[in-house]
Each structure stands twice: as C-alpha cells, then as structure tokens.
C-alpha cells in the first residue's frame, strides 16, 4: 500500500522534531553550563510539542485510530523519516550547537513557507512553530558566532563541526517526491533550500567560519535510510513503552 504523500510529509517533520528533541534531551544536565541545560531542555520541549501535533494530525490523516504515541513508540527505526542531520550524536558542544543551527535555519524557512499552506492544520501549526523556531535560532546562531569568532580552540572546534556535519545538509531542502504537494500549495515552494544557504552563509561569515567543501553528501533520511546512530536513540526512546505497553501514569 502506498502511503499518501501528505501523511508522509507530516511524519517526516514530526520525526525531524522528535528525533532532535530526543538528542537534546540526552544533553540535559550534561551541557557546559546551567543556562545551556535550560536551553536544550526548552528547545527539546518545543520540538516535542511540534512533533505531538504533527503525529496527532498523522493519526487523523491515516484514519486507523492511531493517536500520537503510536507514531513515536510503535514504529521501527526504518519507519522514521527524519533527515539524517538530526540523528547525529551530540559530540562536543560545538557539534551540538552547529547541528542545531543548521537545523534551525531549515526549520525557520520551512515554517515560514508553511504558513501559506492550503492545509489549514499545517498553516496553523506553522504560525506557532515559526515563532518558537525564531527563539531557537537566535540561541544557536548566537553560539555559532561566539564559538567561531571566539578563541583559537573554539574556532577550531566550530569549524570541525561545520565540516563534519556539512554532508548531512543536502537533505535540508525540498524532497523530490513532494512535487505534487508543492504544486497543490500544501507545501508552498518558498525556496527553502536557497534561503537556507543564504542564511547559513551570512552567519558563518560573521562567525569567521568557512563553508565546508564536503561533497560526499548523504541522502535518504526522508525515505527511512539512516545512519547507525538512529537505532540506539529510538530504542532508548521506546524502551519504557515497549516494556510496559499501555502503561499510564
């Protein structure tokens, strides 16, 4: 059975938000300072909120009586449709921040475009998520500039993070199989990829960081192909629910 394109789109972005939220959750109490513990917790919570709404909508679209938890807890790792960037390990603080920044720029321009969606549910979510993402981006962009234009060591680490994560950025744009959704205005074509490149370039310039010349670009995340890092993350996320199905607290 082919999954309808709109349901696939909604799951892709729900998974993008949930997987990054789980990654950030792993950082809580491990961030370099208290303010950053607060930041990763807050951003994670916003992303979980976005994922929940997308999964609730996925349940409606699917029409099989599944609620939001089903999509988070009862799908296998190969059924997750997030871009591979968000599943990458936290690494050092520069990696955590650069990953977040590369994602936040995409998320911001994605939600900006989605505010004009002909799908009322997605447009309403976009209006809210865009405002939340603006706060996330202010935080991650601020750190990218501080690290890049900071000490020799912070610059070196930030540049290493940009270089190591760059190959995952090829997925941060329109997905080819969503052409019909774009034509229908459900996923407005707001040149998200071009805007992403421009916003990232401006910030990296300010941070005295170089755009990576990486060419070994990774793809397939939006289609369920993942790096080896996603499986343990999903297993941890789902462990409690699978050990105690239907548990309430």
């Amino acid at each position, binding site marked *: 059975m082919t999954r309808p394109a709109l349901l696939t789109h909604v799951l892709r972005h729900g998974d993008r938000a949930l997987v990054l939220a789980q990654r950030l959750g792993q950082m809580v109490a491990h961030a370099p300072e208290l303010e950053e513990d607060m930041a990763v917790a807050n951003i994670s*919570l916003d992303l979980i909120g976005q994922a929940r709404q997308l999964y609730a909508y996925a349940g409606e679209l699917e029409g099989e009586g599944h609620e939001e938890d089903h999509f988070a807890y009862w799908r296998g790792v190969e059924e997750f449709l997030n871009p591979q960037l968000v599943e990458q390990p936290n690494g050092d603080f520069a990696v955590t921040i650069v990953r977040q920044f590369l994602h936040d720029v995409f998320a911001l321009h994605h939600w900006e475009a989605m505010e004009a969606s002909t799908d009322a549910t997605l447009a309403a979510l976009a209006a*809210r998520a865009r*405002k939340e993402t603006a706060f996330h981006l202010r935080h991650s962009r601020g750190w990218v500039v501080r690290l890049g234009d900071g000490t020799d060591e912070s610059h070196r680490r930030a540049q290493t993070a940009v270089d190591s994560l760059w190959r995952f950025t090829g997925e941060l744009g329109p997905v080819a199989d969503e052409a019909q959704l774009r034509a229908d205005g459900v996923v407005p074509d707001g040149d998200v990829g071009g805007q992403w490149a421009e916003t990232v370039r401006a910030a990296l310039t300010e941070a005295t960081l170089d755009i990576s010349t990486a060419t070994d670009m990774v793809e397939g995340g939006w289609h369920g192909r993942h790096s080896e890092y996603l499986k343990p993350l999903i297993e941890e996320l789902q462990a409690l629910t699978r050990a105690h199905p239907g548990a309430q607290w």
Partner: protein
Amino acid sequence: MSASPAELVHNVEDPELPYVTIGDLGMVRSVDIDGPVVRVVLTPTYTGCPATEQIQADVEAALRSADLEAEVEFAMSPPWTTDWITETGRRKLAAAGIGPPGPSHPGSSVAVDAPVECPRCGSRQTRRLADFGATACKAPYRCQACREPFEAFKAF
C-alpha cells in the same frame, strides 16, 4: 450569586504561574452554554507547554464543581501571542516579580527583545541574561539599575 460558567473558566489558574488566571493570559476564546454542556474554546500558548493538559483538566474540574459538564477544545489558529495578556494579567505578573512582556512582532522571523521593565524598581535598564528560563514563556533578566535578577515574559 454564584459565578457564571464564563467566570469559572476565566478564573482557572495557570498551573505554572498560579498568580495569573487563564483569562488573564488571554487563553479563553469562547465559553458557550449548549444545553447541559459548556463548550469552551482555549488557545494553547507554546506547542510544547506541559501545562496545556493540566489546564484542560482544571477547566473541566471548575465547571464540574458547579455541576456543569465541560467540553474543552483547543483552537490552534490564530496562534496565541503575549499581546493577548490583559492589563490585569500584566499587573499581576509584575506584582509577582515577573516582568510583563513588551509588544510582540508577529510577522518577524527574528526573535526580538521588547524593552522589559524591572518589576521591582520600574527601570527599563534591564538586560536579558539567557535565552531560556524555567518555563517556555520566560527568560532570566537582570536590572542594571537596582541589580536585582528577575524573570520576564518573552514577547511572543
């Protein structure tokens, strides 16, 4: 005279900010009486706000206490903004030591800080210390005039 259903709903306290009500926060869109059922439409604040479900339960409990059956619905559009916080709500926040939010910039994709008044001394010489605070809606600040640290609502 006992409180009307609308008053009961507006007077439900925010679980995380118990010194203001959901009416003060501008979360209540409508309260309609439909036979034995009171239909309540609320606008949630942040998508990930963990208080949302508690608020629904509290609204149902408040109406149940008056022997009324509640049907609570959340309206996602238009999105909640701190501009909907009432004057009373702003006064209560300040009295509780929380800087009320300045005007939001609804069309802006850049997070903008509106000037925040120190809830202690009233000075506008205040500085945001970090992007995120103890709840999604607040950030930590310090007053440059009286040196007091405080939390303020983000203009959202």
